[in-house]
């Protein structure tokens, strides 16, 4: 993880870290905080606790996003301090709706300079964000809105498993993982397990990303905590609720970072420190039935 982050993420880059509720690459984010990356343009539909922590740690210059809250709990306080009070530093915002930002990644993934949508009419979002522009349909003459392609320097994504060649499989919610990967110049995938190519090839429809699109695979068990990995561990809803308290004051947030990010050498130590929580969150067994690929 240390080498992958150092190699692929430099100060000033634009970095998309996706995973909608599911598969959020926390281990990678913590490593970027430890490496004291600066001036990053951070891209995520839902900044979530991951970006709240990275903003508090001073990694971010700009945020490209569509919903900045603690899901089901409340505000992201570090985000709000940065926006409302420019603490610890100002944060430039570029704001969409989920559909709009997902579509920007889709345009980037398809190497199209823009994509159209029926969304946004009547909303003030186009006034807040000049990147949303009108486009006229060449068939009907009607006005739609367009979003421009987004092509981040790096995508950092979490998944259940990959093989040595980088063929990556994910199940459960996949959000915009595929679009983020194809839109980005470089792709780092963090997985719970590196598995044999044989296992991957026994179920090719589960493959989300082909190996040639993946620049590095990092094996990091429990790497998405406090978010979750379907089939591996549950979401740590308690921690999401505790974050409200931790993040409300800058001091307690910095204390959290000192202990849980700067105070560990990596995810393994983090996991050991979590102790009983790891066992509590372990997934139950709910296997699917195999299907036949024979012919």
């Amino acid at each position, binding site marked *: 993880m240390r080498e992958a982050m150092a190699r692929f993420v430099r100060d000033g880059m634009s970095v998309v870290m996706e995973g909608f509720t*599911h598969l959020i690459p926390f281990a990678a984010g913590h490593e970027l905080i430890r490496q004291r990356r600066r001036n990053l343009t951070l891209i995520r539909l839902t900044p979530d606790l991951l970006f709240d922590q990275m903003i508090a740690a001073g990694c971010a210059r700009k945020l490209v996003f569509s919903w900045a809250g603690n*899901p089901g709990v409340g505000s992201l306080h570090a985000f709000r301090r940065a926006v409302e009070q420019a603490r610890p530093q100002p944060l430039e915002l570029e*704001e969409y709706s989920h559909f709009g930002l997902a579509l920007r990644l889709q345009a980037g993934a398809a190497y199209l300079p823009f994509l159209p949508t029926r*969304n946004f009419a009547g909303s003030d979002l186009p006034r807040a964000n000049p990147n949303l522009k009108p486009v006229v349909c060449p068939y009907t003459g009607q006005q739609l809105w367009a979003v421009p392609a987004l092509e981040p320097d790096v995508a950092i994504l979490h998944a259940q498993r990959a093989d040595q060649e980088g063929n990556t499989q994910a199940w459960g919610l996949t959000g915009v993982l595929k679009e983020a990967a194809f839109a980005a110049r470089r792709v780092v995938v963090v997985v719970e397990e590196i598995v044999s190519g044989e296992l991957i090839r026994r179920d090719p429809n589960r493959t989300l990303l082909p190996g040639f699109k993946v620049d590095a695979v990092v094996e990091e068990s429990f790497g998405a905590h406090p978010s979750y990995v379907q089939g591996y561990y549950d979401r740590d809803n308690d921690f999401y609720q505790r974050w409200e308290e931790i993040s409300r004051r800058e001091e307690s947030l910095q204390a959290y970072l000192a202990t849980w990010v700067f105070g560990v050498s990596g995810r393994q130590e983090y996991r050991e420190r979590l102790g009983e929580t790891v066992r509590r969150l372990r997934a139950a067994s709910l296997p699917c039935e195999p299907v036949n690929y024979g012919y």
Partner: protein
Amino acid sequence: MSGEFTAREIMVTAAARMLRDGEVVLVGIGIPNLAVNLALRTRCPNLMLIYESGAVGARPARLPLSIGDPALVAGAAGVCSMPDVFQYYLQRGWIDVGFLGGAQIDRFGNLNTTVIGDYAKPRIRLPGSGGACEIAVLARKVIVVMPHRRRAFPERVDFITSPGFLGGGRERAELSLAGGGPEAVLTDLGVLGFDPETKEMLLVSLHPGATVDEVRVQTGWELRLASPLGRTEPPSAEELRVLREELALSPAPA
């Protein structure tokens, strides 16, 4: 609040009653999620629940804290990507009902979840649109659920995150928005609808114990009343049982 149920309980119940069996519903977290799950377990066993996270036909075994909860995936009829949810489901017109809430709603049903104050220098920075803007533009109808407080019901919202009827009248229709706009607003005080011509919000029904005066005090413009003004049926014993036992809604005030 009446003695036997909380303001939150009647708000959820009133919202649940807006649904018809068999509808395809895009569900948010919090009160909308409670309302949909209440409807599913009472009058609408064939409701199709879709979460913007991509869980389709979810049958959660526990009440999800987030719209991406793993319990929404296990046992779902399907899972799809978010571009598919927004394009093939929502934009295509397959979502019958979208639920929304917000920090502010105005006289013409426009919703604000972006900022209080000026956009460039906000007094309070709210989470932003998420999927709300597209739900407001594209869902066949929108049901809004939010507590009735004067600061949340201004005459004009500070920022239109999610368009309702804009300036009222034919303004929404003239912009050719694909969806029908807000159909009802369920608060802890009553049920509100929209005038079919002017598209102005109307008080349609008062919840048990609430008064017109109370509603007017909590509304930032001179709220018109439907005639005749209805009275909301209180939550039934069965509705309360489902809410409290199956959905583990704590009886704290909204």
